[in-house]
């Protein structure tokens, strides 16, 4: 079943729109399958928010059949009622995606801080931390570029470094690198520009 149904885009949409997919290892958890009348593997049981079974799919079934079951169960389950924290997390994730697409580090950092504030482990936090790591690497590379180019045009390099300080505010690794570079670049300025 998993090889086909769980990779089908329509099935993925139908399931994730209304349900939280939970894998139960029947070798480890012997209680839960019994509570839902599952005795053969694989078995899928769609539930409502009260924990009651809505629909069941037993064994390997055609994708179309599984999709129909998932959609019918989704109608019975009704619209999701997410927690405030989840709504905040999803909003912050959307803001982060938009900021990364627009290459706007300051907005991306603000969105990452919101996700970290919710503090819930999971895919969204993992993605945010990965994005943060990437931003740090990009920021430090930009600082290095400014330093390299400071021999040719120290005034521009200084301006770039100060801009990086603003854009990457909150990422201490980048801020520290920029702050450390500024005095050396200032020394390269012509006397009049200092």
């Amino acid at each position, binding site marked *: 079943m998993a090889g086909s149904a769980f990779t089908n885009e329509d099935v993925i949409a139908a*399931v994730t729109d209304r349900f939280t997919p939970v*894998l139960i290892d029947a070798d480890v958890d012997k209680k839960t399958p019994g509570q*839902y009348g599952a005795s053969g593997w694989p*078995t899928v*049981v769609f539930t409502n928010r009260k924990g009651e079974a809505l629909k069941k799919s037993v064994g390997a079934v055609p994708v179309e059949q599984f999709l129909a079951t998932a959609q019918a169960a989704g109608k019975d389950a009704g619209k999701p009622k*997410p927690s405030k924290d989840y709504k905040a997390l999803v909003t912050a994730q959307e803001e982060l995606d938009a900021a990364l697409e627009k290459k706007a580090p300051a907005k991306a950092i603000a969105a990452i801080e919101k996700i970290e504030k919710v503090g*819930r482990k999971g895919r969204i936090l993992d993605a945010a931390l990965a994005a943060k790591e990437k931003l740090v690497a990009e920021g430090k590379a930009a600082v290095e570029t400014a330093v390299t180019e400071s021999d040719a045009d120290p005034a521009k390099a200084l301006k770039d470094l100060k801009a990086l300080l603003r854009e990457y505010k909150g990422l201490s690794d980048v801020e520290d690198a920029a702050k450390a570079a500024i005095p050396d670049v200032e020394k390269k300025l012509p006397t009049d520009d200092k």
Partner: protein
Amino acid sequence: MTRMNWRAGALVAFALLGGAWLVAESVRADEPAASDAAEAKDWTEHMGKLPFVVGREAGEAEAEFTGRPPMYFFTTTW
């Protein structure tokens, strides 16, 4: 001489017992809890592209958080 042998023997025994205790503790620390056993398995092929949460407790917590009730997928590794 006999007294020295006794002391040496006691030291060796103490060291061996201490070592055995340390080994036992390290084995205990590395043993996965029963609830972690399912998470430790590789479910990649079972999951397809669905973002599964492994285990009932974690699944229920996620369901409450997202406001989406669980779709339980009961399976095993053969």
